[in-house]
């Protein structure tokens, strides 16, 4: 009987990798690591209190070229978005994610024209809601899903992101734990987007240029 490519490849790897250790023992080691997912070394930099994390995130995101604006409440968000667009001389049009926190914000009090859904690439400005952020590196964590179409992160020239200050963690690891709690062990949303600054390329003579395929501007509205 002919064996499948899968079986042939796995058999060859097994033989080379096992190094005399019994299969039962190897299986045990693998099962343990997958179940325990040991953390390893988490830099001390982000292991600080809430305000410290918010300050560190703001600093690190700024260093990566993002703009961070802190506002007190979700009620202040629509105005802040409208002000930013006006200051940047952009049309008052936004494609917005369906996140309930955004849906509940009083956008009707502004002159903004809001559209919901996925972007077809013609939108200048997108607004999504982050799951949280990583202070250690100034990184936003944005999950795909019906509420946050992935295209909003990448297609519009200007990516605006709402972020609750309570969701700023010190490191990446707490988010893996959160995802396990929410989706179950070993399950994930289609895409977890870790975003650190606006898109860039240094492929021409190593000159760093902002605004490659993704957004040219990344603006974070940090709430609370």
């Amino acid at each position, binding site marked *: 009987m002919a064996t499948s490519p899968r079986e042939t490849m796995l058999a060859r*790897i097994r033989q080379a*990798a096992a190094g005399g250790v019994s299969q039962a023992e190897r299986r045990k080691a693998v099962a343990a690591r997958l179940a325990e997912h040991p953390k390893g070394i988490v830099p001390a930099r982000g292991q600080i209190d809430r305000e410290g994390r918010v300050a560190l995130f703001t600093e690190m995101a700024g260093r990566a070229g993002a703009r961070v604006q802190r506002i007190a409440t979700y009620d202040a968000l629509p105005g802040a978005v409208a002000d930013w667009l006006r200051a940047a001389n952009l049309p008052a049009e936004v494609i917005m994610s369906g996140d309930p926190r955004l849906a509940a914000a009083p956008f009707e009090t502004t002159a903004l024209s809001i559209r919901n859904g996925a972007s077809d690439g013609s939108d200048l400005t997108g607004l999504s809601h982050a799951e949280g952020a990583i202070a250690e590196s100034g990184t936003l964590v944005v999950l795909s899903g019906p509420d946050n*179409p*992935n295209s909003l992160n990448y297609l519009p020239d200007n990516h605006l992101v709402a972020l609750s200050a309570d969701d700023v963690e010190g490191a990446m690891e707490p988010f893996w734990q959160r995802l396990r709690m929410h989706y179950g062990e070993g399950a994930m949303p*289609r895409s977890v987007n*870790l975003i650190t600054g606006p898109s860039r390329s240094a492929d021409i003579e190593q000159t760093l240029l902002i605004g490659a395929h993704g957004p040219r501007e990344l603006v974070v509205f940090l709430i609370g």
Partner: protein
Amino acid sequence: MHLTSPSFKENSARALADAPLQRALAKVPLGFIDKRRAAADALPEFEALRDKAVEIKNHALKHLDLYLEAFAEKVEAAGGTVHWAADAEAARAIVLDLARKRGAKSVTKSKSMISEEIELNDFLEQNGIQPVETDLGEYIIQLRHEHPSHIIAPAIHVNRDQVEADFRRAHADLDPQRDLSDPRSLLAEARQVLRRRYGEADMGITGANFLVAETGSAVIVTNEGNADLTQLLGKCHVVIASIEKIVPTLEDASQLLRVLARSATGQDMSVYTTVVTGPKRAEDLDGPEEFHVVLLDNGRSAMLGTEFEEALRCIRCGACMNHCPVYQTIGGHAYGWVYPGPIGAVLTPSLIGVEDAAHLPNASTFCGRCEEVCPVRIPLPKLMRHWREREFERHLQPAPMRWGLGLWAFAARRPALYRWGTSLVAPLLSRMAGKKQRFSSLPLAGGWTKGRDLPAPEGKTFMQQWAERRSAAGKAKA
């Protein structure tokens, strides 16, 4: 890609005489080296994270079959499909089959070294499918019909004015009077042209930096965002990755991510690190309808359990080549295959055979900088030495080199003879060198003296000087 490793010596000579290439290469050390240093220094845990990275990769390699099985199970649970490719031919056939099933006419691609390794672009073109590279550097070299000369900066050998000329040639439908003198206008033009291509593509192919066994996810890292657009807009997302990209858990991937970007570009994190798992969910508003992972072996399992296994820890950051004096001098194309620099000098003989790659492990001064900066501490000089030993065992070196090594080995095993011999030759060479104490030419050393002078020995051997200093020190004490 066309293999030219056997003519490494001629390739290098050509590279040295290539003025635009030398102009481009002069910039390599300026950017990468200082940025890596600064990023590493700014993180107190960096060295400990490197140790952790080594531990994780070693553990994953020791249990590779089991983690691959776990990975495949999770991919399928998320609605994706895993394809197993023992070699390049199998991988190409799988990708072509997927493209044909979707009736694909064009595919977008995000930078992937595996794609280079399996020569995917040429193959797709031969079969009537247009591959479109979307990473700016890859796009540039695709227009130039070249191959990457660096694993993370594929167009590092190209100068701005050359890119401008290529764009004017390739984008003939745009206004010929447009100003492209600023690199920013080149980037904007590529962005505009490629946006259209994303929309036309029926399939998007990306590589992967890591595959996570725990979740069946591919972790894809870019600065441009092109991998995200490739998978998002392509309707069918195909990940091509080699088997050693597996890590056990998301936490393990996080440890490696902390050393990857710092070692590569000196960033704390690359702009986009995306963890993708399966196709678009039923309730999602966007994303690909299909998700496939092609797992490629292509010679890697033969490295497991050998002294070359350590090279499979490589996370493709490019630090070894950035810091290599040989790479800095000749660039990546001279190495003649997919992977240049020190890691290429170790991987190429493993993957295509040492007969064709015999020069590469010899193209090193063994200065050790590559090993010093490697985030996963691959002992690159040691592995190159292993290849040299194998070359000697298999009589792959030219006869004069073998005789020379044989003669040296004979003497080196007989210390008295060795000392006697060197004590005769050292003063002789010193006298021959005259007042300058340097040779501008010397028989049998033409390869060295053609480019620089050979300093002459100072007249006495190390052992003689050592004995004299010891006895002088003894007298001084007494």
